[in-house]
């Protein structure tokens, strides 16, 4: 299957002919099953044209591919579109089913079988089902479905010998109850069972494809069938699910477990808010202090700054001959602003890599434990007001650590509209931890009242910009619809694997981007572009009542936010000027790494709009503050 290879992966690395896809609902243990089945060469990449990552490995003569967790095969969101695509091209499927949620998961199973996709069911979490008082008759389920069903406990590695043995038996019933609906399709239509099933369910991408083929043209409508048919079919499938669960499952409900009580505490605002704040404090301490300050300072400042950079500089100077024409090249490689071999390496290895790993660790823990959806519930009400829903809480939290990383996590917030709003807010009003550290230091000299003023201004800007975008962007915000998976202790193996895969993919994509950016910025610097920009900024610096050398700070801010804040420590400024300066550089453009990420995750137009919008907001707010301080005579 050609479609599974993303940019940067080698298409020939796995040379199997058949594809085996792992499909299942979210949080059923797919990635653990994947880890058990994968024999060698695990490769993570973005599914082409999307921001969804898929994992590839080898299993026997199969190419094994993971899919994003979905409740059914359709196209309600990006994850579903990716899974749908992979399922349509797969030769066989291992459907991972959560034995504790049979009633929820069998819809997907029956849909796969309706599509005629050769399937083996891995009935996972058998241990939890037993603990919950749920007894599943595996033989009866196998009989009812007509395909192999293998009980597994993925985290203990139980049941995998049998699963491996039975994968070649993957099959689908000759005919299922969906057949009756195929009559709704045009007779002359030539399509596979999978395509027919999706078509009667009103699948738009497929209908469009068929339409182009000239088979069907119904006033330009993308659907081949009556609009209500999808619901009728879903309803019929639900009835089949209920009749199966009615015969194979016996439930003796037990008392609320500890996990459930913890979950209740997290959702209730009264108890949930302090718990969430405590967790945030812990994460902030881990990422913002331990990693961003201590580890990064040591790695970047001492290890790379003291040993690596001087060594590379002297090596390059010795290597390159002294001559006029070689000088520009030497500048590109080792200049002090963003030299390709010096400062760029220092950023990527010294700053970004530790932060990336720390963030992915923290996010994976939150994800694995089931905390994230509960935080979303807790913050939904507040975020609704600025056109977002609870899922946007993650980028906002991560943003206080590192905006570059947060831009990536905006993938989880839902529709394009919500991604745009959250990315814009991140770029504008959320200071990153590196910058915040320096800002806190400077603010300490001014007094607590300035500190609250600073936070107040940021919150007001956040609210106003959010409201403004919510009113002006087309469309409507999506309401929160999210499952609350059972809370459980995070599993270290799972977290390490996720972190490793994500960090690897991040670096593979980020390094070329940052390299290219470094070359461009250095070239601009060499021809005197940066100095010219500084001169051009004079009118703006005087607008906010700052001295001319504030232009130098802004130029630094274009590249890295904390550099700008740090640069201000050496300037002789009044309290009011320090305050205005800090507000301006916080609202000012995101650092160059974050901009590169925004450019990659969104598109050139939104990135440019956000960048220009940051200038406008920073200097309008700064101008108003300067005028206000002027009136007060400070």
């Amino acid at each position, binding site marked *: 299957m050609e479609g599974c290879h993303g940019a940067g992966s080698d298409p020939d690395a796995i040379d199997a002919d058949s594809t085996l896809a792992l499909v299942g609902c979210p949080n059923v243990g797919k990635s653990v099953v994947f880890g058990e089945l994968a024999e060698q060469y695990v490769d993570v990449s973005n599914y082409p044209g999307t921001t969804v990552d898929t994992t590839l490995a080898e299993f026997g003569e199969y190419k094994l591919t993971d899919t994003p967790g979905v409740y059914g095969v359709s196209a309600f969101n990006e994850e579903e579109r990716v899974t749908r695509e992979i399922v349509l091209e797969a030769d066989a499927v291992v459907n991972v089913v959560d034995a504790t*949620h049979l009633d*929820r998961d069998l819809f997907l199973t029956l849909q796969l079988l309706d599509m005629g996709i050769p399937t083996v069911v891995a009935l996972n979490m058998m241990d939890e089902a037993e603990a919950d008082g749920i007894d599943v008759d595996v033989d009866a389920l196998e009989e009812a479905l007509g395909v192999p069903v293998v009980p597994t406990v993925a985290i203990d590695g139980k049941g995998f010998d049998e699963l491996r043995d039975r994968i070649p038996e993957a099959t689908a019933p000759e005919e299922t109850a969906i057949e009756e609906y195929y009559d709704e399709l045009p007779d002359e239509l030539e399509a596979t069972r999978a395509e027919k099933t999706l078509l009667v369910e009103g699948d738009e991408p497929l209908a469009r494809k068929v339409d182009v083929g000239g088979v069907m043209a119904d006033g330009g409508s993308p659907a081949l069938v009556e609009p209500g048919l999808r619901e009728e079919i*879903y309803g019929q499938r639900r009835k089949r699910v209920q009749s199966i669960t009615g015969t194979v499952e016996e439930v003796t409900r037990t008392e609320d477990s500890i996990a459930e009580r913890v979950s209740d505490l997290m959702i209730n605002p009264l108890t949930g808010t302090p718990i969430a704040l405590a967790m945030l404090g812990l994460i902030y301490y881990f990422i913002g202090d331990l990693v961003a300050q201590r580890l990064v300072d040591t790695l970047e400042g001492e290890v790379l700054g003291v040993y690596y950079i001087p060594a590379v500089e002297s090596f390059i100077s010795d290597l390159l001959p002294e001559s006029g024409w070689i000088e520009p090249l030497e500048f590109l490689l080792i200049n002090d602003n963003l030299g390709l071999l010096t400062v760029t390496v220092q950023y990527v290895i010294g700053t970004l890599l530790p932060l990336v790993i720390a963030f992915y660790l923290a996010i994976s823990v939150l994800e694995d434990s089931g905390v994230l959806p509960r935080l979303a519930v807790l913050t939904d*009400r507040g975020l609704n007001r600025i056109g977002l829903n609870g899922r946007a809480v993650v980028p906002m939290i991560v943003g206080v650590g590192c905006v570059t990383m947060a831009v990536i996590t905006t993938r989880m917030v839902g529709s394009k509209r919500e991604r745009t709003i959250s990315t814009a807010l991140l770029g504008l009003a959320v200071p990153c931890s590196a910058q915040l550290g320096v800002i806190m230091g400077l603010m300490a000299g001014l007094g607590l009242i300035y500190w609250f003023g600073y936070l107040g201004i940021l919150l007001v800007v956040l609210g106003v910009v959010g409201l403004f975008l919510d009113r002006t962007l087309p469309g409507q915000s999506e309401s929160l619809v999210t499952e609350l998976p059972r809370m459980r202790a995070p599993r270290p193996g799972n977290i390490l694997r996720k972190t490793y895969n994500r960090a690897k993919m991040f670096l593979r994509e980020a390094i070329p981007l940052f390299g290219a950016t470094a070359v461009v910025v250095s070239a601009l610097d060499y021809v005197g572009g940066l100095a010219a920009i500084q001169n051009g900024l004079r009118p703006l610096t005087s607008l906010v009542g700052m001295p001319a050398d504030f232009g130098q700070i802004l130029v630094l801010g274009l590249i890295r936010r904390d550099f700008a804040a740090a640069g201000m420590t050496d300037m002789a400024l009044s309290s009011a000027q320090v305050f205005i300066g800090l507000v301006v550089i916080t609202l000012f453009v995101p650092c160059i790494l974050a901009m590169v990420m925004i450019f990659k995750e969104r598109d050139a137009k939104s990135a440019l709009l956000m960048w220009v919008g940051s200038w406008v907001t920073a200097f309008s707010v700064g101008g108003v503050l300067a005028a206000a301080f002027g009136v007060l005579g400070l």
Partner: protein
Amino acid sequence: MSEVLADVGSGESVRLVDVPDGDTRARLLRLGFLDGTVECRHHIRKGPVIVRRNGTDLALGADLAAEIAIERPGLEASD
């Protein structure tokens, strides 16, 4: 005026009878939340409603909860 999910308090069991948005309706149907009665686990004031069906918990935002018409299974047959 029929009652909506946003009117339901914690601990009550209701049927979701009308979900105006087609895609959301299909998603709820797929998860089994339109099969019969669902239990309202929590209702955060002016915030999301958490409903449960067969051990699956689903959080629905306040705006959505205000659009979903419900029926209380009283004398009529429940599922």
